[in-house]
């Protein structure tokens, strides 16, 4: 699952947030699980 430019991703386990400033094909993960787009 690719990540999307400008979206905020959140780790549902530790609540860390990431902003994507350059999109790529990888899946962002944290605490051993994929991160989700913050709604």
């Amino acid at each position, binding site marked *: 699952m690719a990540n999307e*430019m*400008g*979206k*905020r991703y959140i780790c549902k386990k530790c609540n860390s947030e990431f*902003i994507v*400033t*350059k999109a790529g094909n990888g899946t962002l993960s944290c605490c051993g699980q994929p991160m989700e787009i913050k709604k």
Partner: protein
Amino acid sequence: MNTTDFLSISAAICPDRDAIVFEGKRITYSQLSQRANKLANALSKLGIKQGDRLAMLQVNCPECLETYFAVARLGAIYVPLNFRAKEEELSYMCNHAEAKVLFAGKRYLDLVRSILPNLPSVKTCISIDDKVADMQLYSELVNSAPDDEIVADIGDEDVTILMYTAGTTGRPKGVPLRHSGFVSYVLDNVEPASPDMEERNLLTVPLYHVAGIQAMLAAIYGGRTLVIMRQFEVNEWMKAVQQEHATRAMLVPTMLKQVIDNPDFSKYDLSSLHVITYGASPMPFEVITKAMKMLPWVRFINAFGQTETASTITALGPEDHIIEGTEEEKQKKLKRLGSSIGKPLPDVEVKILGENGETLPPGEIGDIVAKGPRIMSGYWQDEEKTKKAFTPDGWLITSDRGWMDEDGYVFLAGRGDDMIIRGGENISPEEVENALYSHPKVEEAAVIAVPDSEWGQIPKAIVVLKKGETATEAEIMEHCRAKLASFKRPRSVVFIDELPRNTLGKVLRKQLRETYGQA
């Protein structure tokens, strides 16, 4: 994270979006970032190092933003100077900051030349607009350098801006503002840049003021387009809202009053505006209620803060501007609209202290004090003033007086040194001014203390009447008699044409006291 990341993030997310619109010129996020890098490289070549101070004397313009980010990327400190300041005050600020570089706009070149012999720390002067023999030209400097990004080792707690306070009550004080102060505020209150959402922020507040810097940094992090005006002019402001479809603006009360009282108000399409933030001086109840009626689609926010707090510390939010509910709730909300600055933001603690440093219960007037990670740790190289600014246990004394209601809303009751003490009773000038503003013939009013042999001090009203109106002193005093407790009503009235104000619209009470402060 530091404030330079705000620009880097937005330049990555929305590189082609306009970051700045200024007098027909448009600069995208990518261009702003590149130009800041070029200037940073040029300044580095001039010998500027981390921690050096660089001063700016110019009205709002794109170069102010480019210079801020260039200076910040070098880990140096930006010193925005009040462009209305006179020679002596400017010299004081430059020397106190030990500025190495002084940037100056066209209209300030002669002023800079006149004070330069007294500024031993300034090694380089940079002319922003015109090529002149004795200074470096801004555009040549920018064009001469590469746009490689400089990555300085910037700590979150490093100082990014040295800002001098307005000085309405004395000599300006240097307030060091840290990256962390702005980052904490912006991350808590602003959505980051998004490729899907475009907002346009109309900036008229000067960038030497903390409210201007806060609005600028919030806009850059939010990927918003900053529509910059050199200075506020009411018709130009409405025209800019219409032309650029501005969605947000910050206004001081006098500016908002000019907008809603303008005969051409209905000729402009202001429907794009959805947020107006106001602050910097007390908002007359009549002005905000009229504005809410005339701009019913706008969400109003009253933001309160000062340079020492790095930005907003309390806010009266949009929900507080909706007068709905039971009659009791409506009355409560109307009262808050009249003089409350809202509730403390989540990362700030605010309380009211009594004369002996005790925390006062709701309803009692005392000193408003604040604590939190954004509050300054002290004035720049001034231990004595720093000591006076804090309580022994580290609360910042804001110099504003006020009280808190049972729900935690803070109400202003005047600056500590503006308070009128009549026979031991404190009289808040704002309360008397509100009574004066409710008189149909009064355009503006300010109340000061004058000495009185019997009472120590008594209130005196300085009144500006609406155009074409006439009124007598007795008429104004009679109106106040009906509105105020007897001891609070003014004992004399002076009519003048215009109240003296600083650039932010704050009434210069010190000046009024000097001119009209005799009994």
